[in-house]
């Protein structure tokens, strides 16, 4: 067998992907259903000379990750709902200070402690809006164990490239299920490494709001001295209340993501060419959707699917284009309706229907198929 194929859990694949991506540092606080990520990295990282830290809580965990990242480390934390709520303040800090990091949220039922061992997709809007103030975020929703590994690598690359927190939103199903993974050779994949600025320390500014280029983050300890603050700051990193600086800083936080959306976006289309009903589904729900589409097609109903892999920034352009030719759209989600609003915002005159199942069980292909049948008769 030439390929290195293993049976592993989604959470294990994330840990594996992190190691391949060159993760130097993990800090976390264990929480179901994400704990395996921490457990596995606690064993793997120290053996290859990297750092694993269990912190006193989730806030401190992301704090440690941001400190490590300022020191030049590729850094990661993993958590679930309640931990994600605690991390919001530091996610804002990471956005504001443009500190690269990867945050895994293995979604479980909420709010509060909710359903520790059961799946949900209730944190999609939190990923975008959880921390206060305007900022752009990148979030990725893998739908298989194999994709969990490769998307973790991509998350690290995007974090370094755009100096931003990147969130991976999986769920209890993907996190805990086991299936085949093809472990890549490092030589076959792109890895973006942290690099030193191209200018000497005396000429270095840690931020640049107008060139359109993302300034490399100089690792602390390499002779580059600069100020880091959560206050709005100018290009030197020192706080500023000048209106033009404030506006430039705000624009930049959005522009660096949205103007590079072609590089960041990722999606899959399944049988959309001739579809009369379009499903927009992500994560584990997209698996049930695919099966439901096959059931519908055997019954003569032409359904297809658009599956965002990068969910933030949202694939506005693609949804808008598809909705020009497909007039019925179904958005199945394991929440009370979140991504459906994004789809409605982009739908050009199409009718958008939701299927919202929040009962601790994944949405089944049968439930989706029934809804497809219902919509096909409207």
């Amino acid at each position: 067998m030439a390929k290195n194929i293993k049976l592993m859990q989604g959470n294990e694949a994330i840990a594996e992907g992190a190691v391949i991506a060159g993760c130097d540092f993990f800090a976390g606080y264990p929480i179901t259903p994400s704990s395996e990520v921490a457990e596995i990295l606690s064993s793997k990282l120290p053996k290859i000379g990297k750092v694993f830290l269990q912190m006193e809580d989730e806030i401190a965990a992301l704090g440690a990750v941001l400190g490590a990242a300022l020191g030049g480390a590729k850094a990661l934390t993993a958590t679930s709902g309640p931990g994600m709520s605690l991390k919001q303040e530091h996610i804002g800090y990471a956005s504001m200070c443009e500190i690269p990091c990867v945050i895994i949220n293995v979604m479980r039922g909420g709010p509060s402690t909710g359903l520790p061992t059961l799946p949900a997709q209730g944190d999609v809007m939190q990923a975008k809006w959880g921390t206060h103030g305007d900022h752009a975020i990148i979030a990725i929703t893998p739908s298989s164990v194999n994709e969990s590994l490769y998307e973790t690598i991509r998350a690290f690359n995007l974090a370094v490239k755009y100096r931003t927190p990147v969130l991976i939103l999986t769920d209890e199903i993907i996190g805990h299920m086991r299936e085949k993974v093809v472990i890549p050779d490092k030589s076959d994949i792109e890895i973006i490494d942290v690099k030193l600025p191209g200018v000497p320390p005396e000429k270095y500014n840690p931020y640049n709001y107008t060139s359109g280029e993302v300034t490399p983050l100089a690792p602390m300890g390499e002779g580059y001295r600069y100020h880091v603050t959560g206050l709005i700051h100018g290009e030197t990193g020192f706080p500023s209340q000048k209106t033009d600086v404030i506006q430039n800083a705000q624009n930049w936080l959005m522009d660096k993501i949205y103007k590079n959306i072609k590089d960041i976006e990722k999606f899959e289309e399944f049988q959309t060419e001739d579809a009369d009903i379009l499903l927009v589904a992500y994560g584990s729900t997209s698996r049930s959707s695919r099966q439901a589409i096959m059931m519908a097609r055997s019954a003569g109903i032409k359904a297809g699917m658009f599956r965002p892999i990068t969910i933030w920034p949202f694939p506005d352009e693609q949804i808008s284009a598809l909705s020009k030719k497909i007039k019925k759209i179904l958005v199945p989600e394991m929440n009370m309706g979140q991504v459906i609003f994004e789809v409605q915002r982009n739908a050009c005159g199409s009718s958008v229907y939701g299927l919202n199942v929040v009962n601790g069980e994944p949405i089944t292909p049968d439930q989706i198929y029934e809804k497809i049948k219902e919509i096909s008769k409207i």
Partner: protein
Amino acid sequence: MSDRTEFRFAGSGGQGLILAGIILADAAAIYENKNAVQTQSYGPEARGGSSKSEVIISDSPIEYPKATMVDYMVTLTQESFTKYIKDVKDSGIVIADKELVTDFSNARGKLYLVDMVKSAREELGKLLGLNIIALGVLVELSGIVSHESIEQALMKRVPKGFEDYNKKAIEIGFRLAKEIKKQ
């Protein structure tokens, strides 16, 4: 979709049924190059409570990862028997431990009562390995993977020093299933 075979291991947390599911999925996915997905479901407790582990095996890609029309179910507690039997197909096969399951009021499919606990007690000297006996029964009855594949997958997951013990356990399972087939 039609070539999906669905397995469900149902019992109580700590009985090792999740591991049994992993070993079955590994045997199918890695040693027989089929598609296999293993999932599990359990409550917030570390021990006790009903737990189930499911394995879907198919030659085609597997989308929905959970079992909805169970072909083979093995149960090691009364609670899990009663709770999880509802998804068993009419043509499905249910294997229940003869000592642990006694109320069959909501039984479905074809039911076999098997002396797994008794065999473990008498032949292994303890109940450790009951999960592997159950795995042996399922593999022999379903013929889903070869004995060789399941043993390879089993040996990969067994702690050092327990190879012979587990080999013996799975063979007990094979034998119990062969006895069922004769019925």
